[in-house]
């Protein structure tokens, strides 16, 4: 039923973000942008992006947020057995003819984009990355991105490292969108909304990784769906193109809570 693995290493990336390196019992294949459901027996089950996958080695980047992620931070260690379901959803689409792409990420949104960057590099597509953090204390993976990207630009909200401001401001000042065949973004939804708006205004292909409450994870319960197209984050996404996103009334505005009630995205 489950995909099993054992944690081979835990790296504290920031006080609240950790990298879990996992050795899977069996080989699987996945594309960047897809996610897994991590089951923590009798504690919960949460969706996590695949941050890297090489042979049987899987990376998960987990930010401490609430009940389950806190439990993980406090209890998971080298040797802990993990239970996974997936890979689920559809990943980023990359065309062979792409030559240069831009990645725009914030916080644990770095996870799927790191996996993507590695794959792009393997395909001979160069890419630049814009990484946004709250502060230098929350910063992580910059070196990892430097290993696979041509240019890596960093912003911090408080200016404690790199560009001071939002990653979208960094985008406006540091790169020329027209130079890229495609832009991939992952992070806070309002940030992604900004990125999508900027790209679509200029006719640049853009894809973003969305988050909603994931329950079934397999497209059957409908809870993760986006109006008015009825697209499901877990099955039709989590990656959507800018074109589709702009048709979604919910994008950047609403999500559904556990009851299925629409809430403002700011209440999340």
């Amino acid at each position, binding site marked *: *039923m*489950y995909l*099993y693995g054992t944690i081979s290493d835990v790296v504290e990336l920031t006080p609240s973000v950790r990298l879990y390196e996992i050795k899977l019992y069996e080989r699987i294949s996945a594309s960047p942008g897809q996610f897994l*459901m991590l*089951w923590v*027996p*009798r504690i*919960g*089950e*949460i969706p996590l992006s695949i941050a890297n996958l090489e042979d049987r080695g899987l990376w998960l980047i987990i930010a401490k947020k609430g009940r389950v992620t806190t439990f993980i931070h406090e209890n998971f260690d080298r040797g802990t*057995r993990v*239970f996974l*379901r997936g890979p689920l959803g559809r990943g980023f689409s990359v065309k062979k003819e792409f030559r240069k792409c831009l990645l725009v990420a914030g916080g644990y949104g770095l996870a799927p984009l790191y996996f993507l960057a590695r794959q792009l590099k393997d395909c001979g597509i160069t890419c630049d990355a814009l990484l946004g953090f709250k502060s230098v204390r929350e910063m992580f993976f910059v070196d990892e991105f430097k290993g696979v990207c041509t240019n890596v630009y960093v912003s911090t909200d408080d200016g404690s490292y790199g560009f001071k401001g939002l990653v979208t401001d960094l985008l406006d000042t540091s790169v020329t969108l027209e130079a890229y065949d495609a832009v991939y973004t992952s992070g806070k939804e309002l940030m992604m909304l900004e990125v999508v708006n900027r790209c679509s205004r200029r006719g640049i292909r853009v894809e973003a990784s969305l988050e909603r409450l*994931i*329950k*079934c*994870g*397999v*497209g*059957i*319960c*409908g*809870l993760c*769906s986006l*109006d*008015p*197209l*009825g697209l*499901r984050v877990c*099955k039709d996404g989590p990656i959507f193109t800018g074109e589709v996103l702009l048709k979604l009334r919910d994008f950047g505005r609403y999500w*559904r809570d*556990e*009851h*299925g*009630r*629409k809430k403002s995205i700011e209440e999340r």
Partner: protein
Amino acid sequence: MVNLSVNLEINLAGIRLRNPIVLASGILGVSMSLLKRVEQAGAGAVTTKTITLNPRQGYANPVFVDLEYGFLNAMGLPNPGVDYFVREFFEGCERLNIPLIVSIGGGSAEEFYEICARICKCPMDAVELNLSCPHAKGYGLEVGADPQHVYDIVRRVRKCFSNKPIFVKLSATVPSIVEVAEAALKAGASGFVAINTVRAIAIDIYAKKPILSNVYGGLSGPAIKPIAVRVVYELYENFKNVPIIGVGGVDSWETAVEFLLAGARAVGIGSAVVRRDLEIFNEILEGLKRYLEVEGYDRVSDIVGLAHEVV
């Protein structure tokens, strides 16, 4: 090549369906926009997620397990409550062009009545009473296993819905399905939906723990198909003229046909969506048409209950 003369229309307790393939309750039915997609995918009718009087949060994750032969779920009837539901479903601008069945659940006849009172004026085609959810405390099967309880609930609901069909969704986990069905009919039920999921558990042998947060869940998918076909057959055998929506493990046109032959007038699609997604509707419709053509039937209604014929 599809023979245009094969007629897939079906009359379900007075509702006209363009075809007998219905979206089952709890599957995608949380928003109008998803139901629209299902309509576009070809469904003959759709059912909403079960709505309760008050909002329910449902259970914590995990709520779903993919077994080899079926699926286990314990969503816990998450829903925003009837008032929110009415606002979202009926006060928006989207409308369906196919019949809409609203599934409702409650812990008492009174609760069912309350919900009905708030939805009976809405543009819907039928109501379905979930008297069979196997894992929500105080709901579903806990009220639906007792014929007297079923009678009381249906009677109360009938008070509200004087002229709309009332379908009762049944569980296979009762020693005598006929007793429960009889009680429902006496109280004014128009038809049945059979079956809901079957109470079950999955334990992971390495975690050594039950997987679902609620421990208990409902088994769906191919595993329960022979049980569902049995319930449909048994109902048809006893109440020939009462329309039945057969649900449980339908994942191909062949299984859909099996339900029709057993006596189902319509067939519900549930967890097959996991593997086939919305394509399942079209796959079944195409297969069904081909089958009817090859076997020499003009109308899908011709094969309903055929397995009961003596010769």
